[in-house]
């Protein structure tokens, strides 16, 4: 089937295509304008912006901790009004089914769940397989697991550590590796309550820094396209900017991705000893080219924080609103669920401003990624409003007028004039994520790319434009029209598939037998356990 998207304003920074024109799709792929052929279907994109489908690199959409958060908060999603059931389970509140539909309506076609516990990979993939329309991917968590910490303590060879990382990524069907407050979850089990980059995990004598550097080296050597994804120590603490700065410095010329930097942008200035270090961190990112970051923007309202940083979640359980939490000591990281309401008071205003400072003061849209750390800073449904804040200084000023002026006085936000262009939005939310994750088939509109396309009707209301895409095309299917789901389909989970090292498998089998009294088979599963046709799509490692 040949499709022509006619007369839209094409925004494709990768291929240098900016301006009015047609986009042609044949079956699942984008093609050059075919000479002498008529389209089977023509989509009128007059007055619209045409971009590749958006890619979210960090959004907690499925897996054990996300599901526990649902379980903890039935009231969070009980208040949905009944709508006609256009798609299966579309009236379900905060469900996997709704997640796929809501993302698709905003023109997102690929979303990464960034915190998969490798031991419960099957659960995570079962949830992801029930998220319709979009493609998914996961990052496997390492860095608090006894097997790795023991290897580092015992000075195992880097080859052996690489074999373990490769096995973990392959067996859990992950696209990359994440480390979350490296060493802190293990230390918390031994009753340590604060943990920083140069603190040492009891019983192992291994520092957080050493864990991060070890994993960074293994990920790089293995050719895993996505750099090690780091959730730093001291998240949320006043003064955490120092920890973030030290972690940025620890990149040492090798690619490193820092997650939700906003949550570390806190200084200790002012009467309340809570201030913005957004400008300082942005400057550090600007001058450290091997570092990429995503923001974790805070937007106001009720949400729930879901994190595998169990120490941090334990510490913040007193802030829970409503007053109930789950703290889980898992095999590696575990995690914590703390419901939270971001208020437009002093603290909330500081956090909001820091996120925007980072967005606007980091110059290179290829190195800053658009996230709210869903749902930690805000649910992903707040994205349209966040696009408006980035693209319009007036929208920012209007929003800022309702916030704590004392808080805003401690940030540089008011002095920033920058407005993101469509081209920069396309880089930040399409081209750069594809590059960062090693997804060569998407993020652009060149011939041969996967036909994942978002068409937005231009208008004065930027948020509305991004809230309900005029058309969204996934693998060549029109899945959204005028903000409504038109076509239900099942995406895949994108994964790497490095071959397992046989000696490592034998070691792990012996380890699980001895330490858990279980065969390694317990943690493995065949693709058929997912019960979808082609549940996975393979992505190759760098040569």
């Amino acid at each position, binding site marked *: 089937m040949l499709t022509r998207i006619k007369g839209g304003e094409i925004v494709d920074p990768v291929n240098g295509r900016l301006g009015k024109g047609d986009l042609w799709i044949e079956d699942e792929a984008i093609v050059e304008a075919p000479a002498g052929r008529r389209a089977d279907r023509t989509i009128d994109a007059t007055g619209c912006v045409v971009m590749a489908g958006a890619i979210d690199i960090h959004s907690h959409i499925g897996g054990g901790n996300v599901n526990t958060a649902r379980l903890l908060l039935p009231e969070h999603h009980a208040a949905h009004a009944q709508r006609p059931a256009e798609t299966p389970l579309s009236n379900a509140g905060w469900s996997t089914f709704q997640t796929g539909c809501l993302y698709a309506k905003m023109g997102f076609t690929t979303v990464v769940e960034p915190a998969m516990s490798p031991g419960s990979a099957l659960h995570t993939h079962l949830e992801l397989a*029930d998220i319709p329309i979009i493609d998914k991917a996961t990052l496997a968590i390492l860095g608090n697991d006894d097997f790795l910490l023991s290897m580092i303590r015992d000075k195992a060879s880097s080859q052996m550590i690489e074999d373990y990382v490769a096995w973990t990524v392959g067996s859990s069907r992950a696209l990359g590796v994440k480390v979350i407050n490296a060493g802190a979850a293990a230390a918390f089990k031994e009753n340590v309550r604060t943990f920083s980059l140069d603190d040492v995990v009891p019983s192992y004598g291994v520092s957080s820094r050493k864990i991060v550097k070890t994993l960074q080296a293994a990920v790089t050597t293995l050719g895993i396209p996505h750099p090690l994804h780091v959730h730093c120590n001291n998240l949320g603490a006043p003064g955490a900017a120092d920890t973030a700065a030290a972690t940025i410095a620890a990149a040492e010329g090798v690619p490193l991705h820092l997650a939700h930097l906003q949550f570390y942008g806190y200084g200790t200035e002012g009467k309340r000893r809570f201030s913005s270090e957004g400008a300082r961190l942005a400057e550090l990112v600007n001058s450290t080219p091997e570092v990429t970051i995503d923001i974790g923007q805070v937007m106001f309202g009720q949400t729930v924080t879901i994190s595998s940083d169990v120490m941090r979640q334990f510490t913040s359980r007193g802030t829970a609103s409503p007053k109930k939490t789950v703290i889980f000591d898992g*095999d590696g990281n*575990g995690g914590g669920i703390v419901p939270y309401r971001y208020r437009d008071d002093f603290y909330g205003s500081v956090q909001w401003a820091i996120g925007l400072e980072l967005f606007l003061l980091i110059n290179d849209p290829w190195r800053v990624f658009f996230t709210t750390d869903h749902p930690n800073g805000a649910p992903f449904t707040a994205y349209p409003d966040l696009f408006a804040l980035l693209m319009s200084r007036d929208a920012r000023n209007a929003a800022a007028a309702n916030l704590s002026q004392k808080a805003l006085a401690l940030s540089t936000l008011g002095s920033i004039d920058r407005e993101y262009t469509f081209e920069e939005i396309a880089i930040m939310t399409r081209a750069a994520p594809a590059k960062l994750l090693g997804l060569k088939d998407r993020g652009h509109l060149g011939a041969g790319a996967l036909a994942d396309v978002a068409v937005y009707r231009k208008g004065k209301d930027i948020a509305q434009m991004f809230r309900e895409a005029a058309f969204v095309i996934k693998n060549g299917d029109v899945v959204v029209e005028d903000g409504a789901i038109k076509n239900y389909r099942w995406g895949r989970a994108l994964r790497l598939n490095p071959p397992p090292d046989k000696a490592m498998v034998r070691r792990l089998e012996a380890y699980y037998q001895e330490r858990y009294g279980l065969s390694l088979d317990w943690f493995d599963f*065949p693709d058929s356990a997912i019960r979808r046709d082609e549940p996975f799509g393979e992505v190759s490692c760098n040569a």
Partner: protein
Amino acid sequence: MAVAWIGDRDVPVAQAAKHAAGLLVSSLSPVFSFDTDVHGTRAAIALAERVGAAYDHIGGEALARETALFTDRGGMFIAPGETRRRADVVVIAGSLPAHHHEFVGKLASTIPDLGGGASRQFFLIGAETRAAYLSKVKPTRLAVTGSDVGGTLAAVRAQCAGRAVAEPVSNFERFAKALAEAKFPVFLFCGQSLDLPGLEMLQGLIADINRKSRASALHLPASESGWGSTLASTWMTGFPMRTGFGRGMPELDSWRFDVARMLAAGEADLHLWVSAKTSVSVAKGVSTIALTKGKKPVAGAAVTISIGEPGVDRDAVAWSSRIGTLAAVKAQAATDLPDAASVLRLIAEHLPDGKALPC
């Protein structure tokens, strides 16, 4: 071998499925109860949405209490692997169902290898019986004369906090000393022998301990398939079980959608039963569709379709308390009996809109 019946007449499966679909369509208040794996659950919930049914786990009382602990309060929990590797004090709160006895026995025959604990001591809160599985464990019993598990837990918590109690807990000194020296005490619990206040009291005790040191609770579900179904229900609908689709969108109500209660109260006119392990007793005046494993039709059922048992006849995905998450289970002795999910999908294909289930 016949595998499907309309009444007591054996028919092809497709014909039974079609008849079942007709009954579902004409029902004003259908209810589903199931005891199946994750994929059976997914298909059952997708079908429940299609026909506006309420659904519950078979014998879901204890499960509903465990669920309520999460929906009402939350708490601190630990993985079974970490329990085995770290727990130097193990406290069994109440009694545990038989399917967890092997794990407890394994705890008794091992010692911690992480966290510095050198041995493992066992305590038993409140339970009156000396079950056989505890003979290896040799627990020290904490009890209060005339109190149940919940009452004993309350007294333990009070004494731990230094508060006066009317009736002291037996062996409390020993327990206090063990707690003071412990690196990581773990409390094993199940909704079968604790009511919701008891479950919450246990979490209160654990929260108290965590002010200064570490402790957590290992959830050993009353029903493993029930907990697996709870997880699948939660991701699919946002809600755990005892959810109904009567008004189109899912609604959670652990009293209203208690399917056994609905049947007893005459609130349901159709009952879809899904379990290869147990057979349904047909309620009077309720047309019953039984998906169960048997060579004969269920007496009184309008439709019976024989299904394979998850993990026995068919590969399955099920909750495993040994690893604390969902596991892929290979069929022990694969047969041709269809699994619950495929029968449920077949029924859905005969509904008027003819659309396939999303699961």
